[in-house]
C-alpha cells in the first residue's frame, strides 16, 4: 500500500503541467500559482501541504474548474486521463465535475444544501451523472450512506443536513463526492473542521473507501500528521510553487528543501519533549512581493548568492525532488 506507483506519463490519471493561475487587478496581475507540475496515478493518494496562502486550495480549485473570477488559468495544462480539461467550456466541465472528479470541501455544513433532504441531494447527484431509474438511484444512495458508515441509512435519507452532527455531515459529503464513482477526488481540508476523534474516523473512511473503489485522491491539508497517515506522496507548497515533492516518508524523514526541513522541525511532536521548537523567522511573502530568485531565500538558513538571483526548478534530491539550488550538483554545495 505504501509503495509509490510508477508514474509513467501514459499511466497517470491526472497530469498537471506548468500550471499558472493569475489574478488580474488594477495594480497589475498577481501570479498566485506558478509553474505547478505533478501527476497522480490511479488509486494514489497525493497530499498537498503548505501554510495559508501557499496556493494549495487554488491548485485544487483549478483542477475541478472552480476558480473564482477574476482568477484564471494563465498558462499550462491540466490533463485527466490524457484529455485536456483546463480549457473546457463550463457545460462540459460540469459533466466532468462529479462524474470524473469528486470534490470534498472543508466545511460540511456549507457544502450541503440546507433546504433539501440528504437523500434528495444524493439522488439528484446520482441521476445527473448516471442513467438510472428513481428506484435504482435511491438504492444506490442508501448503499453509499451505508458505505460511509452512517447507520440507519434508510431513515437518514429523509433527514436534513442540520439534523446531522459535524462528522456525520462530512460522511454525507464524502458519499456525495463518490456518488458517480469518480476516478479522482479532490479533498480540500476534509478534516480541519472536525475534532481529532472524528478526524481519525474520517481519515480511515476516506482511505478505505478510495482503496475499495480504486479512486485517486488529492488531499489538501495543512496538517502534516494527516498527510503522514494517509498519503503515498506529498507535495509541499510555498508561495505558489511546489518546494518539494516525493514519497511521504522520505519528505518527512529526509526533507531535501530547507523549507520542508524547517516546517517539520516546527511541528510540535506528541511523542517528543523539546524545550524549544524550531522556528522559521519571518512569514511567507505576499503575492505582490515575492522576492527575486528562490521565494524562500529571505528566510532560508542555507541561502547563498545564486538563490537571490535565479529561481530554482524541481531538481532531483535523493528520493524526492526539491526546488532548491543545494541540489544542483554541477554548481556544488556551498552550505
Amino acid at each position, binding site marked *: 500500500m505504501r509503495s509509490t506507483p510508477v508514474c509513467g506519463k501514459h499511466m497517470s490519471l491526472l497530469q498537471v503541467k506548468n500550471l499558472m493561475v493569475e489574478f488580474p487587478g488594477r495594480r497589475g496581475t498577481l501570479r498566485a500559482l506558478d509553474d505547478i507540475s505533478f501527476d497522480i496515478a490511479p488509486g494514489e493518494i497525493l497530499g498537498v501541504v503548505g501554510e495559508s496562502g501557499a496556493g494549495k486550495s487554488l491548485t485544487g480549485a483549478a483542477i475541478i474548474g472552480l476558480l473564482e473570477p477574476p482568477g484564471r488559468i494563465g498558462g499550462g495544462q491540466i490533463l485527466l486521463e490524457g484529455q485536456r480539461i483546463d480549457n473546457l467550456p463550463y457545460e462540459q466541465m460540469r459533466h466532468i465535475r462529479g462524474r470524473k472528479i469528486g470534490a470534498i470541501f472543508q466545511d460540511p455544513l456549507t457544502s450541503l444544501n440546507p433546504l433539501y433532504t440528504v437523500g434528495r441531494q444524493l439522488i439528484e447527484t446520482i441521476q445527473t451523472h448516471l442513467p438510472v431509474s428513481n428506484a435504482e438511484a435511491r438504492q444506490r444512495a442508501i448503499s453509499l450512506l451505508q458505505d460511509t458508515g452512517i447507520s440507519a441509512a434508510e431513515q437518514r435519507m429523509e433527514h436534513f443536513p442540520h439534523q446531522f452532527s459535524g462528522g456525520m455531515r462530512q460522511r454525507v459529503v464524502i458519499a456525495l463526492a463518490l456518488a458517480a464513482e469518480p476516478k479522482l477526488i479532490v479533498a480540500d481540508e476534509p478534516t480541519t473542521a472536525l475534532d481529532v*476523534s472524528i478526524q*481519525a474516523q474520517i481519515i480511515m473512511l476516506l482511505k478505505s473507501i478510495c482503496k475499495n473503489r480504486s479512486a485517486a485522491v488529492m488531499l489538501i491539508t495543512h496538517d502534516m500528521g494527516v498527510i503522514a497517515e494517509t498519503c503515498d506522496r506529498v507535495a509541499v507548497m510555498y508561495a505558489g510553487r511546489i518546494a518539494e515533492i516525493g514519497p511521504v516518508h522520505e519528505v518527512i524523514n529526509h526533507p531535501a528543501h530547507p523549507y520542508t526541513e524547517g516546517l517539520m522541525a516546527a511541528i510540535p511532536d506528541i511523542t517528543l519533549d523539546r524545550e524549544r521548537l524550531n522556528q522559521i523567522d519571518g512569514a511567507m511573502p505576499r503575492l505582490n512581493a515575492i522576492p527575486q530568485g528562490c521565494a524562500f531565500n529571505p528566510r532560508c538558513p542555507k541561502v547563498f548568492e545564486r538563490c537571490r538571483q535565479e529561481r530554482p526548478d524541481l531538481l532531483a534530491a535523493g528520493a524526492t525532488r526539491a526546488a532548491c539550488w543545494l541540489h544542483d550538483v554541477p554548481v556544488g554545495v556551498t552550505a
Partner: protein
Amino acid sequence: MTSVAPLVQAHDLAKTFDVSPPWLNRVIEGKPRLMLNAVDGVSFEIEKGKTLALVGESGCGKSTVAKLLVGLYQPTRGGLTFDGQDAHAAFKTPQGRQLRSRIQMIFQDPYASLNPRWVVEEIVGEPLREHGLITDEAQLKAKVGDLLKSVGLSPLDMVKYPHQFSGGQRQRISIARALATEPEFLVCDEPTSALDVSVQAQVLNIMKDLQRERGLTYLFISHNLAVVRHVSDHVGVMYLGRLVELADKQTLFAAPRHPYTRMLLDAIPKMHDTGHARTPVQGEVPNPLNPPTGCTFHPRCPHVNDRCRAERPQLLSIQGVKIACHAVEEGRI
C-alpha cells in the same frame, strides 16, 4: 520562586446556561425549560510559574472555564481563589480592578480580537490607560515600544493598523496587550490554533521565553495535544464539562489512564510512524443538552459496565493522578 500555596485555585467551578425556548413558545407549545451545564464542577490548582493545559474536543467547556477565570462569566456554582482571595467576589468591588489587571487573557482569533480601527499603540496602550497605570503620553509610548520589543516586534510598528500585520504578528500584538498590565496569570484560549505551524512555533517560543523571564503562570487551552505536550507542566482532560483526568505532563503522555485520554492520544495522526493502523473510537461527543447518565463517556467507552451507566464517577486521586473513571478505580484497566 514557587510558593507553597498555589496561585490559582478553582474549586467546583460550574456554569449553567439557560437555553430555553422563548417564554411564548414554552407557554403555547408546552416546551420545557432547557439548562445547559457547560462546565459542571471543575477543580484544579496552578502553582506560580507553571502551566496547566486544558484539552478536550469542541463543546467540552474549555473556553467557558477560561471566561470564568478572567471574570467574563459569573460562575453558577463554586469559585476561584487567586493569590488567597476569592476572585469573583473581588471582581465586584472597586479593588477588583486591581485584581483584573493581574489576570489577563489571550484570545484565539487574532483577526477578531484586535480593533481594526485602532493603531497598535492604542490597542496595546489601552489596558495601561484603563487601569490608570500610565497617564503620561511619552511614558506610554515608551512602554508600548518596550512591550512590542518583548514579543519580537519593532517599536516602529505602533503606528500601524492590525490589517497591516500577518496572523502571527497579530497574535504577538495580543500577547503584548495582555502583558501591558504586568499580569501574573495569563489565560490563553487556543492562542495558536488559528496560526500556521511555522508561525505557531514562533508564538509558542515567545510564550515560553516570557514565562521564564517574568515567572508567568499560564492556563493554556488547546485541542492540540502535541502543542499541549510542548507548553504545559500539568494537563487536564475535559469531556462534556467535567475533568476526567488531571496529571502532570510526563505521566499523562507516558501512561494515560482514562479511556477518553487514551482515545484522544490514539486518534492523533503521528508524523513518524506512517502506516500504523489505528482503531478509532466510534461515536461522537453526545449532545450536552441531554448528556448520557452515569459517566458521560460510557456510550463510547470500551470498558463500560453497569456501574458506569448508572453512577457518575468522581475525580479521585489514584496513584498520584486525578481521574474520574470507575474502571480505573476498580482496577479493571
